[in-house]
């Protein structure tokens, strides 16, 4: 089967940043969860998922973000999404009002700062 999603670690950030490209759906959400969490070190403040290049996300993907956020929080780590307003999936995310559950920022830096500061409050 075609690889429909790719994860790419982004360096030079104070927190763990992973870029997701491709499509995130019910078919690959479970797998992506595990891969994403692998990128988060024990001592890291948290994770930023850069989803600006995602072409598609469905409710299963959204559920994934929520679950990651909860799991990291249990570990006193923070999670945030970096999504530019004109990104393909931004409309989907805003319809479900995900920002109420997971911090969404326009830029990676913004998301990273959010993660860092949130983590310090744990």
């Amino acid at each position, binding site marked *: 089967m*075609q690889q*429909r999603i790719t994860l790419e670690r982004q360096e030079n950030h104070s927190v763990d940043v992973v870029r997701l490209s491709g499509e995130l*759906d*019910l078919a690959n959400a479970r797998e992506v969860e595990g891969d994403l969490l692998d990128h988060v070190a024990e001592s890291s403040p948290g994770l930023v998922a850069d989803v600006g290049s995602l072409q598609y996300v469905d409710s299963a993907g959204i559920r994934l973000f929520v679950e990651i956020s909860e799991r990291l929080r249990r570990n006193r780590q923070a999670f945030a999404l970096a999504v530019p307003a004109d990104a393909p999936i931004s409309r989907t995310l805003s319809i*479900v009002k995900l920002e109420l559950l997971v911090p969404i920022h326009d830029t990676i830096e913004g998301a990273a700062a959010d993660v860092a500061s949130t983590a310090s409050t744990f």
Partner: protein
Amino acid sequence: MTETSTTDGPARDLRALYDLTAAVARADALEEVYQEALRIVASALGVERAALLVADGAGVMRFHAWNGLSDEYRARTEGHSPWVAGEPNPLPIVVEDVSEDESLGELREVVLAEGINALAFVPIVGRGGLMGKFMLYSDAPRVFADDELRLASTIAASVAVAIGRREIEAELRSSRDQLAAIFAAVADGIIVFDREGRYVLANEAAAALSGFDSVEEMLAASTEGVMQRFQILDDAGNALPAEALASRSVLAGKPHAQRTIRYRAAGSDVDRWSDVKSAPVLGEDGKPLFAVTVFRDITAERRASEQSELALERMSRLERLADVALRATTLDDLLEELVHVVRAALGSDRATMLLLGPANELLVRAAAGIDPDVAHGVRVPLGEGIAGTIAATRTPTIIDDISQVEPVSAYLRDAGGSLAGVPLVFQDRLLGVLHVSSDATFAFGSEDLEYLKLAAERAAIAMEQARLFEREREIAAALQQSLLPDSFPPLPGVTVAASYLPASDGARVGGDWYDAVPLGDGRILLAIGDIVGHGIHAAAAMGQVRNALRAYGNEDPSPASIFTRINRLLCDTAEELFCTAFCAVVDPWAQTIVYSDAGHPATLVLTAEGEVRALEGARSTPLGALRGAHYREQTEPLGPGAIIVAYTDGLVESRRQPLDARLAALREAVSATADLPLPRVPAALQERLLDGGEDREDDVAMIAVRIDASSDQLRLRVPAEPHSLPIIRGALGGFTRRAGASDDEVLDLKVACGEACSNVIEHAYGTRSGTIRLNVAARDGGVAISVSDSGRWRREHPHGVRRGGHGLTLMRALTDEVVITPRTPTGTEVRMFRRLGRREQARR
């Protein structure tokens, strides 16, 4: 000087001659003759001393008889001759007074010292000239009268004759001795027949060859009696009439006769050969008096030449056997030809090759001289009958009389006769039996068995080779079959049919391949290729390329990119691997085909309207040919109902027709399949394009793909599994884009539809498998989507109410209408409608 007194001149002469003649007649040896002659001449001439000298082989005069001469004198005068050796007409020479004659030269002293004062030299002249001399000595000087000299000469002449005759006699005796020696010692038989054909003379050899213990015994027997002891035949084996015998011919007047006879002693079965020559001895009347026949036994030579003829015959039989192996193209041909060659070579009535079958029975594989129906029915259990025993004991066997054994096969029983057979064995494995049989008993010998062994070896080797070859072919065919299925699992949006026909001779299995792979997003990766090469290696290489194509296709479904990578892969392998190929990504929803062609015959498209066009927009070099080759790809529309026909050149290559003609024929054939159900298309094309009887030199592979997706409706039946979601998205995207939706609208529709489908996947069927039915239509200025299933929804989880579920929210937000209808007895249908062209809608 004293006068010689004679009694009477003539009387004296006569008496002298008479005496001499008598003496000569009496004498046994020449020496006696010499003595007598000397006495007579001395007496007749009244000389006290005389000598007779004869020239030896070197012409030197030697004393043979003398009286009154000292040894010294003889020693000193021997060899001296007043005449030249060989002088033809020497005359007597007289020295009447030695002391006054100068002619003696140095010898005068010697002569005088001996007391000789007069001497006469009288030549003895024979046929060969001067043979010797008489020496007549007188103590006192004297005159030798003419008549005295004449008498002496006459006596000398007689002596000469006597010597001559003695020589002849000696020669005669010596030659007769020689003859006797030859006669006795020679291996050839010599027989002298008289006029009446009776034996006159025979030698030991003749007697021995004729079966007599001695010559006497033979001579005592009659000719007829001897002839009866033998059966005499001519060289060809026909009885020889007596007249034809050499001796008879010659006695009948032929100047000479020669013939070769073949004979055997009565009661013996051993043939002998004789070379017989006969010559006549003619009598005074010119008619044959005797026949002298010499016969020489040439049995040994004959046998040797028969042997070498036999050897030549054997050589040519062996050459014919070798020829068989070279000429035959299939194992069946080889075995057929082998039995025929064996039969001809051994001159048997029949030759049969039996092979061991699965039930441990010998069955006829090839036969010469037997009715095919009869051969077909032969079944010889291992260990039984003749062939069965030869096989079980693995022993080469000659059966001189079949009626003495128990053959299983009726045809052997009925024919009787004799048989020679050998087992067919290869490296310890018993393969069968090869035997020859004839109606005559005792027809085969050890040499025939040796020949059969050789033929059996040939056959065994050929069969083993064929078995290995067949095995390899089977493996290659199985490999190919597993990789080249005739049918494909159903793929959404398309129907695929394919066929593969290996080349006729089976030696070229392995080069062609095809593949149709769903990419998981509704698109199909289609490929066909032809690897240069045959057999197992080509089949394995073909598998490699196929796998690489799938792998690369999943990573990046771009035909150009796929080809670039495969080309690099093939160029980098150590072996020269070379491949033509066609690769395409078919999107039945977007109704496009993106393709690339690497030196492959142009793939055809048969449109729904019946037109045939070729996909020629992106041609490049074959894969593995040029490392830096550049591969392009071309996108073309593909209407619903269009059929893509890809094939390998075995379909169009023909030695009998030019390529253009074949391509035109292909187009016509494709066009003619327009109304056929797709699964029948490949077979129909083969039928039209391939000559049923013609030998296929090359494999023929074909794959046909029909675009089922229609333009105005998207109908999809996919498994209710997560992996169906990308397919649905791909199909929906293609369809809605064609319906005029913008990118945002397409994405919205994908999300909405995806949610409805995800619900079905997660909740409709529980642990069972089920199907999602998707129908999408473009109408009323928008897109209408229907997602239905036939599952039993769990009541606790009606659509949309899920832990953290956002599905319904998204469906409602992204479409204008959402209607969820439970279906009876089971299942649900979700219908959604979205008007196109209203951006605000998307931002709600």
